[in-house]
């Protein structure tokens, strides 16, 4: 009876630990923060793996959210209001989303706050922010493969495939959540890769949002004509935090 005081059948359940078992050719990035991009350099990742994981394979850079109040900011603000959200200027684009109704497809531009451009490290290949992915002037292609091990020997097979470059986006990089209950989200205006970002899709409705993992392997071609093969294996931390990404990669491919 004493054992029943705190309950029984503990063996039914798993006890997650915060420690992550990372295999060779794998990265783990906690990209759950709304306020940061995580920049991944595959050269550094390979080096890190060779060194036994002694240093981080990614660099965190905060998203600028403070309003730019100098002349540049004022001009940008004037410009954005005139162009009605087509200016592609760095800043926070506030949108209203019909999160409790039709869903994200029903949205409305509500305001712009000019900010400093997104800082970037010197060397990087891709950057992740929750379910969003950017490339460093690269382009992505979604294969039908579900394992990097099954891919053709090299990327030449995909030479003639249609790769999609990063595109301007002011709807998906959710950054400011202060007014979320009212359906108002402040998004960073920035280029993201729509194909690579499809590896983790967030849907509203329903509320709370649902996440759907696409386990296909993606090929990313970079300006130096090198390629990386990438696959999202998991998007949750051991304790269930979403947007903690376990990425399988092969670089160069």
């Amino acid at each position, binding site marked *: 009876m004493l054992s029943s005081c705190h309950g029984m059948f503990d063996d*039914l*359940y798993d006890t997650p630990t915060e420690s992550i078992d990372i295999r060779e050719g794998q990265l783990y990035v906690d990209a759950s923060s709304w306020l940061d991009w995580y920049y991944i350099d595959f050269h550094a990742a390979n080096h890190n793996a060779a060194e036994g994981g002694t240093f981080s394979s990614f660099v965190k850079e905060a998203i600028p959210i403070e309003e730019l109040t100098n002349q540049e900011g004022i001009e940008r603000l004037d410009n954005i209001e005139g162009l009605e959200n087509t200016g592609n200027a760095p800043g926070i684009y506030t949108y209203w989303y019909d999160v409790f109704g*039709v869903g994200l497809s029903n949205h409305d531009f509500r305001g712009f706050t000019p900010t400093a451009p997104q800082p970037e490290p010197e060397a990087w290949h891709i950057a992740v922010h929750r379910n969003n992915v950017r490339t460093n002037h690269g382009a992505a292609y979604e294969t039908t493969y579900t394992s990097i091990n099954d891919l053709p020997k090299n990327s030449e097979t995909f030479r003639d495939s249609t790769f999609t470059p990063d595109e301007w986006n002011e709807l998906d990089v959710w950054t400011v*959540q202060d007014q979320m209950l*009212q359906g108002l989200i402040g998004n960073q205006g920035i280029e993201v890769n729509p194909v690579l970002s499809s590896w983790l899709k967030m849907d509203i409705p329903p509320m*709370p949002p*649902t996440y759907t*993992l696409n386990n296909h392997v993606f090929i990313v071609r970079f300006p130096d004509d090198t390629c990386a093969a990438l696959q999202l294996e998991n998007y*949750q931390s051991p304790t269930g935090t979403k947007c903690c990404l376990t990425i399988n990669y092969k670089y160069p491919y």
Partner: protein
Amino acid sequence: MRHLIISILFVCGAAFSAAQQPDSIHHLNDVVVTGTRTPKLLKDTPIQTRLITAADIAKADATNVEDLLQQEMPGVEFSYAMNQQTHMNFCGFGGQSILFLVDGERLAGETMDDIDFTRLNMANVERIEIVKGAASALYGSNAGGGVINLITKEATEPWTLNLNGRIARHNEQRYGGTFGTKGKWLRNNLSIQHTTMDNYGVSNASDPTARVISTIYGGKTWNVKDQLTYIPFEGFKLTGRAGYFFRQLTRTPDTPERYRDFSAGLRAAWKMSEQDNIDVSYSFDQYDKSDFYRIRHWDVRDYSNVQNIVRGLYNHSFNDTGILTLGTDFMRDYLMNKNLDVKEKHQNTFDVFTQFDWTVSPHWEMVSAVRYDYFSDGKDSHFTPKLTVRYQPINNMNIRFGYGMGFRAPTLKEKYYNFDMAGIWIVQGNANLKSEQSHNFNLSADYTKEQYNLTIAAYYNDVHNKLATGVPFYKPNDTKQLYLNYLNLNNYSVYGGEVTLQARWDGGWSGRLSYAYTNEQLPDDKDGNTVNNQYLPARKHALTARFDWEHKFSKDYGLRASLSGRYLSRVKSVEYVDYYDIAQGTSTIKYPAYTLWKLSVVQRFGKAVKVTTALDNILNYKPQYHYLNSPLTDGINLMVGLSIDLEKLK
């Protein structure tokens, strides 16, 4: 709606004029136990008790208690809480103030202040006894608004085996089986039920005035219960029980939510003499919540509520003058919740109570009770009195008047919660909460003449220190983060009444019409500020109706047709214009009225086989907006069921 009510009354009146048969059909000689914790005939119980019989449950074809109550009782509404978990409003009281019991035992676990109603399936339920009004003098905390007690069946035949199934829209499926055996000393009853339903989307018009939902979640459940009774000699009964419940709800495909319950109990009932009986029981109930991470195949528990309860109850009968009841309970309540500030908490509660049921004369009966409760967390204690008088001026008529105090001790969650609600605000517990207390006054009368039964009841509740969340606020040094604290609100009142008319006529006709009025005056906080009410208020007017026609065409074929429905009036709710800027004030949101009707036909083939065909929501009502308190429907629903009693296949 007025035309609908007039039509119903007309049909009712026309049927009345056709009445011919004397009455023996209102179950007035059924035994009920919940009101006094002693067996009483329904017609004689001093505490007004609403009885839902096994026949009523079969007619409703209900899957669980939620399904049943909203069909059977006006003034009971199940809606969604903010996170689309089910919330009950029972005549102005929420789930924390209505005590659900199964064979007299409490249930562990809550979500948004309500127990998991899907645990309470209708398989193997003998009857449900509902006592409205404060019952804390006998049942302690959480019984301020009433008690709903599900009584399970015991095997009465050498063997019985029922198998049943039902299918409906949205891939809704229900399968069940009940196996009963009865020997000289041993009886056993095993029931298993499995349900599934897909999630489905619902549409809303543009520009809703309040929060709407776009998905109705289905899920799957498993419910297994076994009860073994041993009767070694006359007057002594030992009952052991065990149960397992599992529910899975999938909001996010990769992380379905799981709910489990493990229950067990042992009860000894000994009738020592004609005047004395004693009842001792031990009950264990563990309710767990977990998330299943499909990718890792991990099932991670984040909530567990474990209740171990020992009870003792002694009754002594003073021949015809009265019954003395003495009782005591001890409960160890353990809570593990990842959103508690210290993750794990427990407390012990202890109570003693006594009741004297005094038969003053053949026309007068008076019941008085007093109870003392002690809660180890905070060293809180309560005295709770109760007095009820029953007067029987003429045969088949009862007038009852009662006063009862109700109370609800703050839960461990309300004291120690610390939950970041998706960045909107942080909900904080409050260790200094006082118990919520209510004074309940009720007056009722019931009258039975031949095949008619009329019940009229009115009640008034004066509630002090209501436990709830208050006004969202910013801390002085943190203007970015909103907080929402649990606190005691100002005094407020809930009052209302109910009228129920039942009848049965020649030719297999029967009907019941119930109307409930509820006035729930929502409280402000102690400073007079309008609070962010956690749940939508009760609807003022509600009506339920049922008409049945039953006919036996031959030995091998019978038919029952039923039309049942409910109407709930519109309701106004005062809500903040902007949760982030409460200085903007409040506005009144109007939620629309609705009515839902169900037509069902049950065909009996031989003695063993029944086929049920039902059209739910026959008026094809589709809410324009699926608000949190809209009915969970997207239109008419065809249900087909089959039930076979194998022992009758001869």
